[in-house]
């Protein structure tokens, strides 16, 4: 009797195990099952492998748009430069500014003018102190500016433009009378922006350098007043 019960239990266990394959156990891999059935059914040409659904998800690459900085200003200016002893002459130049903060900016300028005749040359007739090439006055400045009075300008009821009164000072070089001279510059300017990208300038600066172009070393003050326009980029 006992042996019969054992035999019955054993046969139930074997039957249960053979049924294991058809059950979906959580650790059972469906892929291996599919390949197993595919390899088993090679002799049967009609049997197609069970299709496995592959998710076709196209991942979107999200590109965060960049913010364009517009801290640089480039442009030109034109005005009058009073070259000490050589008269007031037209001057033209180019400028590049970089705005570091709302208060401070750095500026590089390059300008050219041509010195006129000294009073001595005018009075004494045919005397030439400098050659034509030597009369060329070229300079560059590397300056630091400070917007000390920022504000707004109103034209009529509908137009408001941001503006700033700034102080500027720096170092540079002046080439005049065939000689290079270390120079300092300082002055003030006014900037008004009719649009976000355009600025109009009025500047007054003094270019100071030491020179011996007339035989003795003396400090030369060269006042310059210009108007200009720049674009922000």
């Amino acid at each position: 009797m006992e042996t019969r019960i054992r035999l019955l239990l054993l046969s139930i266990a074997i039957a249960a195990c053979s049924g294991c394959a058809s059950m979906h156990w959580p650790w059972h891999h469906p892929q291996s099952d599919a390949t197993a059935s595919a390899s088993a059914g090679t002799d049967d040409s009609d049997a197609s492998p069970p299709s496995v659904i592959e998710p076709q998800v196209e991942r979107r690459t999200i590109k965060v748009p960049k913010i364009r900085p517009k801290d640089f200003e480039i442009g030109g200016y034109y005005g009058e430069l009073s070259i000490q002893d050589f008269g007031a002459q037209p001057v033209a130049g180019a400028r590049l500014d970089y705005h570091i903060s709302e208060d401070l900016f750095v500026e590089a300028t390059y300008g050219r003018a041509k010195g006129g005749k000294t009073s001595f040359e005018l009075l004494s007739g045919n005397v030439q102190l400098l050659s034509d090439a030597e009369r060329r006055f070229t300079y560059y400045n590397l300056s630091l500016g400070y917007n000390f009075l920022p504000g707004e300008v109103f034209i009529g009821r509908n137009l408001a433009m941001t503006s700033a009164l700034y102080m500027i000072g720096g170092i540079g070089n002046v080439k005049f009378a065939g000689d290079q001279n270390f120079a300092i510059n300082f002055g003030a300017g006014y900037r008004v922006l009719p649009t976000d990208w355009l600025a109009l300038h009025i500047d007054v600066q003094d270019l100071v350098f030491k020179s011996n172009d007339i035989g003795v070393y003396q400090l030369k003050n060269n006042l310059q007043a210009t108007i200009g326009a720049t674009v922000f980029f």
Partner: protein
Amino acid sequence: MLALWSLSLVATPARAAHELLQLFVTEPYLELHTGPGRGYPVAQVVARGESVDVLFRRTDWFKVRTERGVEGWASAREMKLTTMADGAPFVVGLGDRAQFAHHRWEGGIFAGDYAGATLVAAYSALSITDNLKIELGLSQYTGNVSDGYTTEIGLAHVFMPEWRFSPLVDIGTGYVWVQPKATLAKPVDRSDELGYAGVGARYYLTRRFFVRADYRQYVVFTRTNANEVNEEWRLGFAFFY
């Protein structure tokens, strides 16, 4: 007519191709000023949950456009509290000590002395790491005996970039163009290669600004038998971004 209409349909997405960054206000409100400065009056506010499109940036101010099409200037300090469309915080460099230690570009202007001549110099540097920088320099000197220009390229190593006062060493090479001054015979301008090694220090001031001082020794590889050794010191104002 139909063709024109279809053209305008095509043209619309093309115009919108230049995408603007959209940011969402998470604070109670975002203030919009009339100009890019702390003193300009607040003309508009954007409420929490609303968004703005960033048109461009000028220094620490952003020109933005609201959903209703109103434009104004928002400060970087306030923009830092907005989020992007996916909820991630908007990250913006404000120019502080952390950025002083970790930035990509820097530039500056120097005045100083090169072998007894007055020196004006400008430099720009690109950071490879926080410690190591590639430097490009241009300088002009004006002296009693000669004037000249130099161009240099070199490497600078900053010790402790996170310190407010950080020392550095640099080494590099370049060219010098010398224009001797003469009264009797006109000597010929010459150009020579040069090498330099120097020590320096930088000191963080505020925002994006620091001062920098350098002492360098230049060796000018002249065409004569003896090389020329020149000393240079310079002090300058620099900024990073």
